[in-house]
């Protein structure tokens, strides 16, 4: 590399030969600032190495106490609680589906073509989609007393916005051509919906509902923490008295149940697709 070569290269593309240091420094600075902000936040909420170290010893004791898992002679009760959790998930999902169906139809652009109405409706659904079921469960249990009633209601309400949105999308994304074909053959509107729309959207909706059932089974397990019954209640009780061998047993059993339900539901969804 002679100086002449260097000059020639610089003339051809100065920035490729000497990348701007200012850019680099700036980028480094932004990175450093982001890191500093993150550390400041961590300190603000109390996430510090000392705090971590302080709790890890206890956590290690807990984990050691989990082995070997032990049913504590209450297997029947645990299985019954698992059944109750599934019952809550199933009932909640069905209620949510029933409520979401009309909302979904109403939310579909092809059904309600008024853009402002459509946009507003969807935004409201979007806003409430994020509220976790536990937040609903807390207030329903307070209002209606301990027991699965509040849990089922919480699961249903937490699901409605998400399901309604998916239903609406299923209706919007359906292929127009079969409907057109039916109309051209002189079919009445109900017939068009029955033979044109329903065969397209029903499997999709069913599959999405099953997906929600899966996630509800996971959510239902924690509702017991706020008093909505089921396996969450059993778990909370045992964590409070530090019976970690029983906690481990319940969690393991529950994980197996989740896996089984997921497998069944995936099979069903594969058949629907």
């Amino acid at each position, binding site marked *: 590399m002679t100086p002449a070569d260097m000059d020639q290269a610089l003339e051809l593309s100065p920035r490729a030969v000497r990348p701007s240091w200012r850019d680099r420094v700036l980028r480094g600075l932004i990175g450093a600032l982001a890191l500093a902000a993150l550390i400041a936040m961590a300190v603000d909420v109390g996430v510090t190495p000392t705090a971590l170290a302080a709790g890890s010893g206890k956590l290690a004791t807990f984990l050691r106490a989990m082995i070997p898992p032990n049913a504590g002679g209450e297997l029947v009760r645990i299985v019954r609680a698992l059944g109750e959790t599934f019952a809550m998930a*199933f*009932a909640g999902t*069905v209620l949510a589906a029933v409520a979401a169906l009309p909302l979904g139809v109403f939310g579909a652009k092809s059904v309600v073509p008024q853009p402002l109405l459509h946009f507003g409706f969807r935004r409201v659904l979007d806003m409430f989609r994020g509220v976790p079921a536990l937040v609903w469960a807390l207030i329903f249990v307070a209002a209606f*007393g301990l027991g699965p009633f509040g849990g089922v209601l919480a699961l249903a309400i937490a699901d409605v916005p998400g399901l309604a949105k998916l239903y609406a999308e299923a209706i919007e994304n359906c292929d127009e051509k079969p409907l057109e074909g039916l109309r051209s053959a002189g079919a009445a509107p109900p017939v068009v919906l029955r033979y044109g729309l329903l065969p397209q959207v029903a499997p999709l909706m069913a599959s999405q509902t099953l997906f929600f059932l899966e996630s509800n089974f996971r959510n239902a397990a924690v509702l017991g923490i706020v008093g909505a019954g089921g396996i969450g209640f059993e778990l909370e009780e045992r964590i409070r008295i530090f019976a970690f061998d029983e906690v481990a047993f319940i969690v393991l059993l529950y994980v197996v149940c989740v896996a089984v339900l997921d497998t069944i539901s995936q099979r069903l969804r594969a058949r629907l697709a």
Partner: protein
Amino acid sequence: MTAAVEVFEQERRRVLRRRRAEALIGLLAFSALLALAFQRSEFFSADIGGDPLGRIGEFLARMVPDLKAEALLEDRQARGSLAWWYYDLPLWLRTGWQTVEMALIATTAGAAAACFAGFACARNLMPLAPVRFVVRRTLELIRTLPDLIVALILVAAFGVGPLAGVITLALSTFGSLGKLFAEVNEEVDPRPLEALEASGAGLARKIRYGVLPQVLPNYASYALLRLEGNVAAAAALGIVGAGGIGVELQRAITYTEFDTYLAILLLIVAMIFLIDIGSEQIRHRLIGLGAKR
């Protein structure tokens, strides 16, 4: 001709009979399950104090704040004003911000760890099969544990406060992003990697110049999506004592201030909504960049 029709009709009847039987079994199974579910969950027989509809009406009435049109904009002392409804707004905003902080820290920590895990269990980047197997199983195990159960145990260990919540969220973020990152890594275009290998580059340089430029936009997009979910999850974690605005929800319930609960709930909804919109903007820009390449 008639024979063909006969064969068709027979076939049709057979298929129809089978389909009807299947549908009937399915319907029966579904109804039985549904009946059992409602019975087990005591939904309809639930004792919520008699007169269920009345109870629900009463509950809704208690949740809606007693706002008065003429006092709406007055200060906290005036019963029926907005300020009276949101009487502890500064505290709620502070704890709300704490919830966002929890989500940010947990997402960053979880995503950083997931980067390593994503490389350690990608078929095309990690040649040692046992390492891939162990990392993959670990991620799977973490994903199956319900967040709030983990949070309960961690609150018992680390005490009440955001630390337990942050660890919980970081763990579950690690589990889900680790899997997603590994999938992104495995879908990388192998040709630039081959060119790097052909020019004598080792694994580190292959990752830096062949993999990272391809995967980073996808990583960022997944991490942002996860951040949205984590803000909502962090809000719920407060209910079990893991810090943030959820603690205030729990307090409102303890004092049976249902209208306060609604106030905080709406605040949470707005907060999640704002984060979603912001992150959506960034994600769309990231994807836009991706489309241009």
